[in-house]
């Protein structure tokens, strides 16, 4: 079967078959699961639909989160944009609104696609759906982009980690943003190498980010950081598409991210014992909510 364990092997396969990362990932998926391409693309289309629904619901029907720390942010960004006041430009303002929206849906017990985790589920839909709106992309192209993203996520799961408890936020939202950056590059016509370089750039730019959820809940600062991850993905994709090459290839950057993650003290790995989680103002808010 077609398979790869590193980004280098993935790029070799792309070159050998003169094809895209998404195509290699689809062939691998068909081999691995003994399903047809129609079956796996139909399943991914369903995932895309869940992403679209969650983005729409957050704007149409804002919800307070279970822990009460967030709710309504996506709608605020949406209204701000439609009042003509956005300073971030169309693409970025949509991407951050969508990514925060998905996190709101997640935190209020709505349906999401973990991408790669629930806490980082906003980044990829945020980026690809903003690109679709901006550039009139077809759903089929977005499905391919999701297979491209899953190739990068698979490499992270195989060679590093996507668990905040193991590697901090850089492993969750950092990897989600690396996946989104690679997907964005392929969507906008970049080469497979440009995809992995964009992913590498994101991991570099988000290196060391800690996981410090207030109250131990997947709400704050997680939601802000999904927006930040989406913006980071767009920055890295733009750099890569402009022909800026990186000194550090993706495989090395994955190792670096993993090594740094394991060196983070446990207090900064999802335990809610350090970072933002111990900020007096945030703790005070949690106490109010618990009473």
């Amino acid at each position, binding site marked *: 079967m077609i*398979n790869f*364990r590193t980004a280098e092997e993935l790029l070799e396969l792309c070159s050998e078959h003169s094809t895209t990362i998404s195509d290699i*990932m689809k062939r*691998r*998926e068909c081999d*691995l*699961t003994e399903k047809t391409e129609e079956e*796996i693309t139909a*399943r*991914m289309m*369903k*995932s895309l639909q*869940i992403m679209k629904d969650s983005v729409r619901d957050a704007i149409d029907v804002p919800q307070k*989160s*279970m*822990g009460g720390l967030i709710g309504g942010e996506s709608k605020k960004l949406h209204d701000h944009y439609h009042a003509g006041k956005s300073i971030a430009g169309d693409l970025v303002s949509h991407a951050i609104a969508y990514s925060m929206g998905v996190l709101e*849906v*997640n*935190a*209020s*017990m*709505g*349906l*999401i*696609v*973990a*991408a*790669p*985790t*629930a*806490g980082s*589920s906003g980044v*990829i839909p945020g980026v690809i759906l903003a690109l679709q709106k901006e550039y009139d992309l077809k759903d089929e192209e977005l499905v391919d982009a*999701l*297979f491209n*993203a*899953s*190739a990068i*996520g*698979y490499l992270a*799961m*195989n060679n590093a980690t996507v*668990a905040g*408890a193991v590697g901090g936020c850089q492993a969750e939202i950092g990897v989600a943003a690396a*996946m989104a950056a690679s997907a964005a590059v392929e969507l906008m016509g970049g080469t497979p190498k440009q995809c992995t370089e964009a992913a590498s750039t994101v991991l570099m730019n988000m290196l060391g980010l800690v996981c410090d959820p207030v*109250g*131990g*809940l*997947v*709400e704050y600062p997680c939601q802000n950081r999904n927006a930040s991850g989406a913006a980071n993905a767009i920055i890295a994709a733009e750099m890569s598409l402009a022909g800026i090459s990186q000194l550090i290839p993706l495989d090395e950057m994955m190792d670096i991210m993993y090594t740094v993650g394991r060196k983070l003290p446990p207090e900064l790995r999802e335990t809610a014992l350090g970072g933002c989680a111990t900020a007096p103002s945030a703790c005070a808010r949690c106490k109010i909510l618990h009473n």
Partner: protein
Amino acid sequence: MANISAFEVLGPNMIGPSSSHTAGACSVAFLAQKMIKHPITEVKFTLYGSFAHTYAGHGTDRALLGGIQGFDTDDKRIRDSFKIADENGLKYTFVPDDTVEDIYPNTVDIEMKNAEGKTVTVRGESIGGGKVKIVKINGVDVEFTGEYSALIVTQQDVRGVVAHITAVLSHLGVNIAFMRLFREDKGQIAYTIVETDGRLPASVVEFILDNPNVKDAMIVQ
């Protein structure tokens, strides 16, 4: 790890907010409800470790109650599982217990009672990324994940029962992936858990029950 599917990277499709505290909790309860004859009339959840501390903020309680009512991890009814349970007359209680320390952080005991007055207690662990393990049935240590089709046989611990089970499976053309026997004391109640590659035909239960030393047989798939 080289066999990770694209849908394990982008997935599971789940009701938030947490794969371990919400989706995993739902899966444990979903498996548990398959181990007792319906309708279930009462259920008590005892929450340990991290479940005991943060269950409300993660919707762990709604996910557990949803799972007991047969909702899968991507079922939007999970958010309203309390209301749906009330409408259906299902009684439920949640008991956070943070006094037990020597236990996996995300553990729950689920004590179910059905209309016939029978009770079954199941302990499950949510082990990350939505994956779960059932580790006790009625106080006996067991282990299975629900990733395979499973046959759970409750039996008297005497010779010949396991041979009976394998003979039935062989007769029905079922290939066994894993098979384990769990018991507490010699000669008392034992559990055989058989995990299989394909789906188990419903007729398995009838054949397995046709032995005086078999007390119960259930399919979980």
